[in-house]
């Protein structure tokens, strides 16, 4: 059975059963309910990115507790969990976007292949070129479509000649499935596109610098179902050349696009497993409670 279907069935079954929701206030979560270690299979062989005992805090508030996780090469890993569980915070550590927040502190081992992300010798510019990011809200620059895609390649000097740049722009737009729609108006402002097109433009802009990993922070939450379907299709194609980590609130989406799924809960990584396993027979009760819609 397809995992998405299974999920739909779970959700609807839950609705009819009308079981009482777990009230988090009245039944305080006991420490023992958190697993000592993340259950499932957080580690893989020859990972693209490797994280051990990552802690993140904003000032005095700890947002992420002891997360250890591997992200495999050319896999799509989805990070799910209720709002405020730290999945976006974690994602933003992976290319050090948290640097822009003064009070954010990150500790633990974070490696991209054999390079330490938070090493003082690490060049954050190079890191972000290798680990690109697509944001929740489409944020094309107020420039032309062409300039939007050419922005990164120009910054990193990826093209010496005009035709090389043209080529990069075309390839990126093709990969993002946007070329046919915009090839006649490359010099029209990128902000004039529809929301879904804007988001694909942002994806094209990200892959134009040939990153190794693409981070997506709820890339479809501002889009309609049709645009969402297109992006999901695109993620499927991109996985051939890129490693993708995607944060999503839609469990159907996680089920549809990812190979592995990581469930976050209140700053802890509860369970990581194959997507199939997470949505059909989750190992941890919190994961089960979440994916069956009991909270979150």
């Amino acid at each position, binding site marked *: 059975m397809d995992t998405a279907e299974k999920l739909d069935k779970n959700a609807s079954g839950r609705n009819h059963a009308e079981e009482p929701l777990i009230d988090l206030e009245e039944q305080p979560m006991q420490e023992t309910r958190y697993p000592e270690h993340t259950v499932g299979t957080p580690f893989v062989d020859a990972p693209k990115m490797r994280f051990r005992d990552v802690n993140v805090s904003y000032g005095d508030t700890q947002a992420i507790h002891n997360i250890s996780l591997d992200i495999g090469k050319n896999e799509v890993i989805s990070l799910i969990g209720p709002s405020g569980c730290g999945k976006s915070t974690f994602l933003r550590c992976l*290319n050090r*976007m948290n640097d*822009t927040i*003064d009070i954010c502190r990150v500790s633990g081992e974070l490696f991209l292949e054999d390079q330490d992300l938070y090493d003082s010798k690490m060049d*954050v*510019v*190079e*890191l*972000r*070129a290798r680990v*690109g*990011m697509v*944001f929740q*809200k489409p*944020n*094309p*620059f*107020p*420039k032309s479509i062409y300039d939007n895609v050419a*922005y*990164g390649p120009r*910054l*990193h000097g990826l093209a010496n000649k005009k035709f090389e740049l043209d080529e990069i722009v075309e390839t990126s737009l093709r990969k993002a499935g946007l070329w046919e729609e915009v090839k006649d108006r490359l010099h029209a*402002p990128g*902000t004039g596109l529809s929301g879904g097109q804007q988001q694909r433009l*942002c994806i094209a*802009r*990200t892959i134009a*610098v040939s990153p190794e990993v693409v981070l997506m922070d709820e890339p479809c939450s501002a889009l309609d179902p049709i645009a969402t379907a297109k992006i999901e299709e695109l993620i499927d194609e991109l996985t051939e050349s890129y490693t993708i980590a995607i944060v999503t609130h839609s469990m159907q989406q996680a089920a549809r696009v990812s190979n592995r799924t990581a469930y976050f809960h209140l700053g802890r990584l509860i369970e990581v497993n194959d997507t199939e396993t997470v949505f059909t027979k989750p190992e941890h009760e919190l994961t089960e409670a979440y994916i069956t819609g009991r909270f979150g």
Partner: protein
Amino acid sequence: MQTGNLLLLLVVLIGLAYYLGHRRAVAMARPLGGIRHLHSLPFYYAMRSALWCAMPALVVLGCWLAFDDSIIREVVLNGMPVDLRPADEAGRSLMLSRIGNVASGALSADTVGPEVAAAAERLTSLRTTSAMALTVVVVVLAMMGGAWAWLKVSPTLRARQQVERVLQFLFMLCATLAILTTVGILFSVLFESIRFFGKIPFSEFLFGLQWSPQTALRADQVAAHGAFGAIPLFVGTLLISAIALIVAVPVGLMSAIYLAEYAHPKVRSFAKPALEVLAGVPTVVYGFFAALTVAPFIRNIGEAVGLGVSSESALAAGLVMGVMIIPFVSSLSDDVITAVPQAMRDGSLGLGATRSETIKKVIFPAALPGIMGGILLAASRAIGETMIVVMAAGLAANLTVNPLEAVTTITVQIVTLLTGDQEFDSAKTLAAFALGLMLFLTTLAMNVLALHIVRKYREQYD
């Protein structure tokens, strides 16, 4: 009763009408079971009463004050014997002022003819009558209006809508007033300018290279040939404004970027108001700072390197003016830079751009229209600025672009032309209006340009 006292009385009446209207509305609501059974809140009934009390009375008061003096004067003049009535306008106003002086006691009644003395008496008595009548009419009107509105208070009266409509009209009136004032200023300057251009040809004024605004009192006067070529003034104005902008734009812009992008919030909360204090310094203070500190400093440096610098120089005035307009550039730029959404920064940083690359390539273009607006506002301010240039730039209308020489500007010349005793039929005085018109048109054109730039190049980021 004097007008001031009458107004005070009117205020009391309006307050009373408000209070009574409020009380009546509340009293009517009580048997119904509370004010929610009224059509409008008691406030609106009270407002309606107050407005009915105020508006007719104020309109009558205003019209009366506007017209009664001229009507009384006309009556007094026409009451004089026919042979004493002056024929022309000048004679009439002379006669009227004599009568007025006698009536106020400034001129003894013995020194003028009995007819004039009689007219003066008539004037006094008419004024007294008018003032009394005004008081009665206004008070009666206010009371009637208030009473009528008070009687009309009922739970079904649509007071809210009526008050809203009156308020809307009031707001519109205020907006119109502001616009009409601008139009009025423009026309007053325009008419005097047309008179000026009747004496001096337009082309001579606009393209003449000589500025020495004198008019001969006698035909045989030596060196009395005035020249009204405004080019030296335009050049002087542009030179000083350019120097000011060269100082203000980079400094203002970079401090704005620092404040918006790099400064810690604590630094920003202190530094931004501190920068804005610069705009609050009175220009006359800047003026003597320029004349007494900066100008001698520049001259000393110039002498040290062997340059002849006049003690009043365009450079000194321009530099100080530049400092003055820094806040216009920095404060507005800071606002627009801060308004660029964080998503733009994230997008750029996420692609591996450094902070300064992000500023240069994304934030600056996105904020450019606002920045241009700030710069043009600063430029208008620089062109129109008077006090600093009067004190520091000099009066000599040299046609030069050498910033070390004394130059003069349009505003300075307007000041010198219009201070002291004037004769409003000479080209010398009227030239001030022509200059004013040019200045007005220049700043207007710049504002229109600024608006256009902002509209055209606005990079919409949402």
